């Protein structure tokens, strides 16, 4: 038995469609996820996140390389891996003519759970996702967010040892998103390993113990949220509308990111007073805030774009 829940080595995937040039979605992804860990894959649209998730969850065959789940090669032995995983597919929808209660319960039964366990877990998942009031309405009458909550409830109720979630909170309101986060944390505490993709950086920041930023099919950087933020070069961001014209005055304080006529400077806290003095001298107004994961993401992906 291994402590690693997932190990990917040199994973490559090239899509070949007749009449179109081949598309290299993954160009050698190597990463590891420990048992019980919550990991987020971040990246631009088309970066390769969903391709990675689909290969790891036995739904897509790789072109080269290997992924192991709990030490079992997913491409060689998918049937041995599948009992231990569950997936929220990207843009998946519940059956329109089932109620959320029927959807969750029948799915658990199809996974081999007993009636009693199925019922108990279905009720708990519906409550955790705030679906109790809608549990007996056909999914076709639910809003997009409620349907997505039904999908997430369906998969979280499995309590599978490894959960893959591809943009699980898309279309959800902030309350529902927090319900999902709480449920994922609870499952993680009970030992489930969680891998998710998201475009909500606050979600990744809040939820993940480790992040992988993927771009153009390779892992560009990995680490905790704090590590990634520190890699930006400071812990504060100072935004100055109209500051782009004065960029040379601020270069010594840290990384300067022009944004139209505005300017954002990533700076260390100990130089904030000095920086503000220069801003006042230049007749600029400034707002100060902590560096977020978004800056780290833009920094990493921006460098990747510059390399293109």
């Amino acid at each position: 038995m291994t402590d690693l829940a997932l190990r990917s080595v040199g994973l490559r995937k090239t899509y070949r469609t007749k009449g179109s040039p081949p598309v290299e979605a993954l160009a050698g992804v190597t990463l590891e996820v420990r048992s019980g860990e919550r990991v987020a894959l971040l990246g631009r649209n088309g970066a390769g996140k969903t391709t990675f998730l689909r290969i790891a969850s036995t739904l897509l065959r790789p072109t080269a390389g290997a992924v192991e789940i709990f030490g079992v090669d997913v491409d060689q032995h998918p049937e041995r891996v599948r009992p231990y995983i569950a997936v929220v597919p990207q843009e998946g929808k519940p059956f329109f003519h089932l109620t959320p209660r029927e959807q969750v319960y029948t799915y658990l039964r199809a996974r081999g759970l007993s009636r009693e366990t199925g019922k108990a877990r279905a009720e708990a998942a519906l409550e955790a996702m705030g679906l109790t009031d809608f549990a007996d309405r056909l999914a076709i009458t639910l809003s997009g967010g409620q349907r997505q909550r039904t999908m997430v409830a369906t998969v979280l109720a499995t309590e599978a040892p490894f959960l893959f979630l591809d943009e699980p909170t898309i279309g959800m309101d902030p309350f529902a998103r927090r319900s999902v986060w709480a449920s994922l944390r609870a499952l993680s505490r009970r030992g489930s390993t969680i891998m998710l993709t998201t475009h909500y950086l606050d979600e990744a920041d809040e939820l993940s113990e480790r992040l992988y930023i993927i771009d153009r099919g390779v892992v560009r950087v990995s680490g905790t949220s704090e590590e990634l933020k520190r890699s930006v070069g400071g812990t504060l961001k100072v935004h100055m509308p109209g500051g782009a014209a004065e960029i040379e005055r601020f270069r010594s304080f840290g990384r300067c990111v022009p944004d139209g006529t505005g300017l954002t400077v990533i700076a260390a806290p100990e130089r904030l007073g000095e920086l503000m003095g220069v801003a006042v001298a230049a007749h600029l107004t400034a707002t100060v805030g902590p560096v977020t994961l978004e800056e780290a993401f833009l920094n990493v992906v921006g460098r990747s774009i510059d390399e293109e």
Partner: protein
Amino acid sequence: MRSESVGWPRPFQGLTAFLWTEVLVQAHEELAMATSMVVQGVLLVFVWILDPTLIGVALLGAVLFSMFTMGQRVLNEAAYLRIDHKANELYLAGPLTAEGYFLGLSAGVMIVYLPPVVIVGILAGLVVHLTLVEVGLLIVLAFGVWVCAASIGYIFSTAFRENRAIWAYSSLFFNVFGVLPPVFYPLTKFPVALRPIVLLMPPSAAAAILQTAIGAVRPPAGEITLAAVGLVVEAVLLFALAVYWARRTARER
């Protein structure tokens, strides 16, 4: 590693539950269940007007045709669930096997659309005065036709990438192969030279066997042997191919 499932995966683990899921899903389409017999009903009226003595043969044909068109429903449902709902990803990335998914979906569709077929079958039994053996033969043949149709439907469902294409093509195959060959009319009215072709088509092969069993036609023994052997071989091969294809397409390439 903890798991809620029982050790090693079993080929048909979860099949019954998934079948029941599909029954629940399909059972909400009451109108579709009622309209599933429209084509058969129209053809029966035509036969009644043109030659009332053939209504018994046509009723038996309607049962077989209905079982054959269930393949079209399997095709539509499997493609729709895959393209629109990603249900295949939800289920196949779990303990339910690919063959369990194929069989559960196909059997679920069949169970929901079976009641009107049973009513037509009872009507046929009353009109033709079927013996118990002939009723048994009808059931076996209908099952054989369903196995062929469901297998064809599931295999073809994997070829579509969007639903609009399915609407255009799926009914074509099942209607043409169910209406043109001698299913609603006696085999003997079909040109002798072309009979080997229709005797290798599941619905017309089953109809030829039934028509011979009730004494409606007396074709050469070779033709009935061809129909019987062909149907058995096709059912076995198509089912095996569908299971193989379900496993193969459980993972995209």
